[in-house]
């Protein structure tokens, strides 16, 4: 009954989406206020019905209703409640439901909070939003219905893939989807602007909070997924350049570029046409990401068994939306007015530099991800494009980007003084030089490039701090006055500095782990010790431990410093899940400030020894800490924006407006 209700609610949502996609559009063309005003209630109703449908699926999962095929295949009554809930999106059908749920949620937010939008823009963008929702509703109903019943309900479900029985599943996909789908708002606004053939700086002001919010979620989603893969897959890698990881990185890169170009558009009225294109691209890449993950065209951790109709359907959605959007862009973009002159050396110039390198980096990832598919389709040759490709292309493009990053905020709008900016960054450069020298002195056998990587990270971090120091004049005016200036700074300035600082932090972590991480693989027996970096691990023995829906073989290790000081115990394990007859490796982690010891257990051998992998990961936590900084920076900036977006009368705070240069 519940499942049928959910199915029915989804069909109603599709109907509402079709109404929302057509009437307001007609209204906007014929200047009919009534038709245009239909968009808001339709968007809200559509959200309510999708939410009902999603809730129905959730009820089926929580109550372990195995007469529903989707629940039977992906859940098990022995699983803890949290995993019964998260397994809703731990499969193809459910994850598409989550996609649509978030999509309509954003649509409803625009409907509710978009009261200060021009009527036409709101009507058009909600209509575009509805077309996307309709396409995905149809996709679910036709090819991926999660509400299908099985005639004879089994007693027990097949269980969720054990790899996914992890708190990571509660966090990572929803955050990622919030990011992906968040870009749909920018896309809808862009299409709406093109339909109207009119765009101004205010457009950027409306779109920026959405882009920023989506970007924050995507940042956290990617970082969360990276940490999950790091501790779950048992070999301590945090980024594999796996096609599906790339699928989430591409929208992030395009979204980051969009975030920066929208600033130029809002403050200076320039780069309009480019910003619109980026808005289209960011969401198109999100759609491509969905296609890559969901169609099963890729060999990857994430592939679901392939059903060709799904692939063709998503491909059709891609072709219609991306192709349609780009065609509209080609037709209408020349009509948009250009504005805002600036010299190459200026804040705008720096942001253009940022955009060029980010989009080029995005293009290399795109090629690296899709080239194998294209080659196989054309010639039949099967190749894999792995980390070496991305290190050789992505890396060289990111270095100049990071080198230039601290300069951007220090340059003035319109016409900047590169020399003055360089003088201000002198301290950062000196600090970086010291860091390079120190790393060279300290490193015992590591890549020659590593100290330069450290130097670059320090330069980026120090550059962000100098930006703040310059704005607060902390070194030039009395401390109290500087504090007052700091309090008066727009939050977006703090946000920028924090996010840029975070990039440096992440880079530092990546460089340290890549260059100075170490690894031991050994077969050991109880009583044996393994040494790594300045730690000594003693293997005490194996014991069995029962779990909720698995049993595990746990190894107990005592960790000491080389000096003998006791640090604690590590207990890596291997879990066996009887429902799927599948084993997973649960690595044990011990954090020493930002560094980690990483220990995972292999198969026990017949002779009583057991294989272990032990890694020392120096400064590894910085990688994800940096992402948290980026998220916090975005949040600060977003809280600033909300205050200003709601208030059209900006003249009240001329001082803030002068400094409002993020």
């Amino acid at each position: 009954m519940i499942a049928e209700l959910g199915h029915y609610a989804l069909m109603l949502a599709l109907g509402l989406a079709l109404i929302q996609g057509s009437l307001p559009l007609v209204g906007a063309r014929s200047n009919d206020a009534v038709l245009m005003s239909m968009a808001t209630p339709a968007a809200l109703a559509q959200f309510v019905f999708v939410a009902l449908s999603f809730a129905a699926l959730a009820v089926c999962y929580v109550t372990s209703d195995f007469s529903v095929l989707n629940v039977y295949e992906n859940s098990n009554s022995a699983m803890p409640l949290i995993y019964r809930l998260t397994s809703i999106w731990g499969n193809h059908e459910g994850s598409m439901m989550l996609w649509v749920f978030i999509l309509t949620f954003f649509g409803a937010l625009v409907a509710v909070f978009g009261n200060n939008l021009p009527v036409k823009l709101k009507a058009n963008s909600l209509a575009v939003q509805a077309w996307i929702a309709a396409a995905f509703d149809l996709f679910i109903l036709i090819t991926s219905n999660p509400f299908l019943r099985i005639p004879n309900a089994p007693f027990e479900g097949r269980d969720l893939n054990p790899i996914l029985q992890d708190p990571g599943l509660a966090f990572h996909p929803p955050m990622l989807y919030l990011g992906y789908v968040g870009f749909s708002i920018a896309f809808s606004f862009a299409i709406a602007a093109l339909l109207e053939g009119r765009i101004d700086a205010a457009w950027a002001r409306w779109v920026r909070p959405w882009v920023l919010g989506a970007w924050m979620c995507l940042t956290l989603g990617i970082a969360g997924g990276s940490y999950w893969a790091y501790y779950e897959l048992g070999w301590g890698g945090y980024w594999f350049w796996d096609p599906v990881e790339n699928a989430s990185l591409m929208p992030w890169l395009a979204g980051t570029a969009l975030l920066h170009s929208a600033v130029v558009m809002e403050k200076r009225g320039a780069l309009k046409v480019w910003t619109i294109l980026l808005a289209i691209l960011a969401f198109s890449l999100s759609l491509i990401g969905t296609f890559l993950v969901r169609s099963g065209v890729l060999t990857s951790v994430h592939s679901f068994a392939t059903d060709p109709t799904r692939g063709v359907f998503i491909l059709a959605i891609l072709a219609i939306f991306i192709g349609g959007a780009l065609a509209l862009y080609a037709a209408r973009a020349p009509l948009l007015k250009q504005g805002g002159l600036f010299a190459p050396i200026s804040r705008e110039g720096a942001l253009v530099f940022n955009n060029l390198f980010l989009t080029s980096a995005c293009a290399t990832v795109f090629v690296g991800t899709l080239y194998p598919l294209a080659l196989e389709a054309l010639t039949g040759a099967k190749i894999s494009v792995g980390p070496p490709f991305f290190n050789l292309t992505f890396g060289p493009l990111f270095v100049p980007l990071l080198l230039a990053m601290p300069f951007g905020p220090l340059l003035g709008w319109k016409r900047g003084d590169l020399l003055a900016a360089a003088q201000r960054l002198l301290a950062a450069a000196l600090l970086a030089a010291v860091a390079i020298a120190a790393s060279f002195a300290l490193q015992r056998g590591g890549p020659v490039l590593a100290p330069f990587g450290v130097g670059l990270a320090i330069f980026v971090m120090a550059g962000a701090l100098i930006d703040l120091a310059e704005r607060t004049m902390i070194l030039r005016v009395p401390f109290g006055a500087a504090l007052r200036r700091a309090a008066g700074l727009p939050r977006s300035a703090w946000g920028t500095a924090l996010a840029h600082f975070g990039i440096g932090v992440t880079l530092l972590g990546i460089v340290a782990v890549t260059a100075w991480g170490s690894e031991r693989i050994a077969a050991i027996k109880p009583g044996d010790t393994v040494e790594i970096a300045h730690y000594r691990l003693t293997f005490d023995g194996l014991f069995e431990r029962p779990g909720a829906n698995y049993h595990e073989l746990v190894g107990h290790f005592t960790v000491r410093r080389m000096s003998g000081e006791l640090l604690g115990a590590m207990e890596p394990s291997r879990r066996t899940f009887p429902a799927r007859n599948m084993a997973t490796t649960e690595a044990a982690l011990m954090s020493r400030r930002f560094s980690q010891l990483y220990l995972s257990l292999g198969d026990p051998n017949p002779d009583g020894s057991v294989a272990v992998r032990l890694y020392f990961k120096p400064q590894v936590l910085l990688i994800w800490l940096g992402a948290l900084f980026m998220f916090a920076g975005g949040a600060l900036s977003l809280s600033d924006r909300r205050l200003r977006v709601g208030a059209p009368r900006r003249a009240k705070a001329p001082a803030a407006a002068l400094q409002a240069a993020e």
Partner: protein
Amino acid sequence: MTRKRRRLVLIGGGLGVLAIAVGLMLNALRDSIVFFNSPSDVVEKHVAAGTRMRLGGLVKADSLVRGDNLRVRFAVTDGEREIAVNYHGVLPDLFREGQGVVAEGVLDGAGVFEADTVLAKHDETYMPKEVAAALKKSGHWQDDYAKKAAVPVAGGGK
């Protein structure tokens, strides 16, 4: 600077960066791509020793030999030919005889494949796409796999 010249600088810069990116990609594609081969491919194509590649197929039943210090040796077969593989390290959780596997490494002079990576599979019913294709090509594809593959398998939300 006039508007025209500024625009020229912008467009020139953009094209420059793009050219660099394309150059980097072409260079990297020449050096760092890895071809996938089935055991039959290796024999038919006379893949030269020392060429980095991926080898995929089924782990031959009863071929796994565990040596000292985590050295393992097993054979990869596509039903037609088989190739011996040497590996040093911990095998992935789902490595089993009779199951699909993808190994990356180089062929040595004696025709033995020295693998430095054996790819982890994440589901017991999961068959790497390349392996499935290779098996189909050699005519050793069993409907059993197809049946398994037709059941939607839980995958990542990642």
